[in-house]
């Protein structure tokens, strides 16, 4: 028996070593902050290794191509951010467990496996590894009823969507006799079974379960409650990581397994994307809790990113990937400020807590302004560039009207994002909030805002990186 080539899996192996050592270290040290530091340093090392470990191994089950590398970069940056912003937050809630970081890294390993999955079994196992860890993370503040409720809701609906995915996988296996993504795609093309009803049913199941994971309407019902109830640092983590991972498998499965059926799934995804943007943007208008508002905004952004899949082209995919990277920075930025207000003044959950922030801390208000501009998609921020590439891709694919619809919904989103800006700059504060940017969260916020502006002004290197990463 030939020993498989292990080079492509090195990042995953390193992450596994990291997580196992974290688990053991947690048993022996009392200062859990060191575990966070170790997580950050370890993940940074893994980012470097990601770029050097490419190839296909385990008989095509594991594919470390440039597509997966781009996503792994997103996941690792995401876990680093999440680890940094969690320390203070958890300490304030007396929930500073070492297991928290262990589960963060576990979830990230799951995402990395998903991004590299060349086989549906591997895809499913990666998804489960990610999902199980995030269910636990959502409920990790055990004294908080909302957190527990979030975990239970997320778990029940997540298990349901996993079951639907398994049904879809079994149908595909029954029809094509293979679990290998590439082989299934070739078989479908060779046999010309694009009108097979069972295959279409499998396709619908895949859309349903992936739609659940990216929080696309009408499978978004869990999102507001879970994002609201989960610890804020976890909300920041799971509004990017699992979503980007789901987009990674969305892109890979649909572009490799179902390219011949693109006529069918594009027609299915267009109403889903429109509905997602509509639900996300319109319901967000009515929210007064900022975590719920960001949850609906996250639904809306999933709708925009879906446009990249609808384009069904490499241009669309790279625009989607680029958007995920940009969304990572702007979303984390918004959550950092919420967490800082939470840590330092025990406020920040209601949008009214942001009134008059420009008086008490002009710099923080200004940074939040840039992030809100970016989420809306106003130049010169990265959010604008991300949307521009997505809309261009969708126009080039021949759906100009869809781009117009998306622009209209973006305009609607300005109402609720800029409402916060208005509160910060034009209103008097109800009570004085002292906010200091001189800590690690503040530093991270500045870095994130810098990245948002940097990508906004100079998007070329990131677009090129994403364009290299075509399937």
């Amino acid at each position, binding site marked *: 028996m030939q*020993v498989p080539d292990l080079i492509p899996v090195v990042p995953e192996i390193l992450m596994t070593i990291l997580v196992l050592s974290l688990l*053991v270290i*947690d048993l022996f040290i009392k200062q859990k902050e060191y575990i966070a530091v170790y997580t950050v340093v370890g993940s940074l090392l893994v980012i470097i290794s990601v770029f050097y470990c490419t190839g296909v191994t385990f008989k095509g089950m594991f594919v470390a191509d440039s597509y997966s590398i781009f996503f792994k970069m997103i996941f690792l940056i995401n876990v680093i951010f999440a680890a940094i912003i969690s320390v203070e937050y958890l300490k304030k809630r007396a929930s500073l467990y070492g297991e928290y970081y262990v589960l963060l890294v576990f979830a990230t390993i799951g995402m990395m496996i998903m991004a590299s999955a060349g086989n549906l079994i591997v895809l499913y196992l990666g998804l489960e590894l990610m999902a199980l860890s995030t269910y636990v993370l959502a409920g990790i503040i055990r004294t908080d009823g909302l957190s527990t409720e979030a975990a239970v809701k997320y778990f029940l609906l997540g298990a349901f969507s996993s079951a639907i995915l398994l049904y879809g996988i079994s149908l595909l296996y029954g029809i094509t006799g293979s679990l290998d993504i590439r082989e299934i795609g070739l078989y479908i093309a060779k046999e010309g079974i694009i009108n097979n009803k069972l295959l279409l049913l499998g396709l619908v199941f895949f859309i349903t379960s992936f739609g659940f994971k990216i929080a696309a309407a009408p499978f978004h019902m869990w999102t507001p409650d879970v994002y609201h109830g989960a610890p804020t640092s976890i909300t920041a983590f799971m509004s990017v990581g699992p979503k980007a991972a789901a987009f990674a498998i969305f892109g890979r499965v649909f572009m490799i397994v179902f390219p011949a059926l693109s006529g069918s799934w594009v027609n299915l995804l267009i109403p889903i994307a429109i509905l997602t943007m509509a639900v996300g943007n319109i319901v967000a208008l009515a929210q007064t809790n900022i975590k719920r508002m960001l949850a609906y905004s996250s639904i809306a952004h999933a709708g925009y990113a879906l446009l990249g899949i609808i384009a069904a082209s490499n241009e669309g995919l790279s625009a989607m990937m680029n958007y995920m990277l940009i969304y990572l920075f702007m979303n984390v930025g918004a959550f950092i400020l919420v967490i800082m207000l939470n840590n330092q003044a025990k406020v920040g959950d209601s949008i009214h807590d942001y009134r008059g922030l420009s008086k008490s801390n002009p710099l923080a208000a200004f940074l939040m302004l840039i992030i809100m501009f970016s989420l809306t998609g106003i130049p010169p921020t990265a959010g604008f560039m991300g949307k521009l590439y997505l809309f261009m891709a969708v126009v080039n694919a021949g759906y100009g009207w869809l781009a117009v619809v998306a622009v209209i919904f973006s305009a609607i989103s300005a109402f609720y994002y800029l409402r916060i800006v208005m509160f910060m700059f034009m209103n008097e504060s109800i009570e004085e909030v002292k906010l200091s940017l001189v800590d690690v969260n503040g530093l991270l916020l500045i870095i994130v805002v810098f990245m948002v502006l940097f990508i906004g002004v100079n998007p070329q290197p990131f677009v090129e990186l994403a364009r290299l990463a075509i399937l």
Partner: protein
Amino acid sequence: MLNEPGTYLPVGYLPILIFLGFSFVFGLGSLVFGLLLRPRRPYAEKLSPYESGIAPEGEPRQKFSVKYYIIAILFVVFDVEAVFLYPWAVAFDMIGLYGFVEMVLFIFILVIGYVYAWRKEAFVWD
């Protein structure tokens, strides 16, 4: 003929089917037989639970401690591990050293889980 899907008959399991049938008939039969034979003269005291001794109080079902849950889930995890060991052991002469290394890795990861559970006092009852 054997290669056609849906035509397989596990004939080797016929004794088990017969056994199942027999135990089903025996169990049900003895209940029915007893029902037919025994005299039925019910009265209130006879029908109440615990014919002799103290009258029952409260609900029969009590709330379990969450401790049982941890034990149960640890049991499931290591049960599944044992299940993986079985085909490994049976097919060992075909997979050899290669399979051995794999299984060592698999068990190593779970042993870390075991040590973790141990140190976190998951096995301590109080």
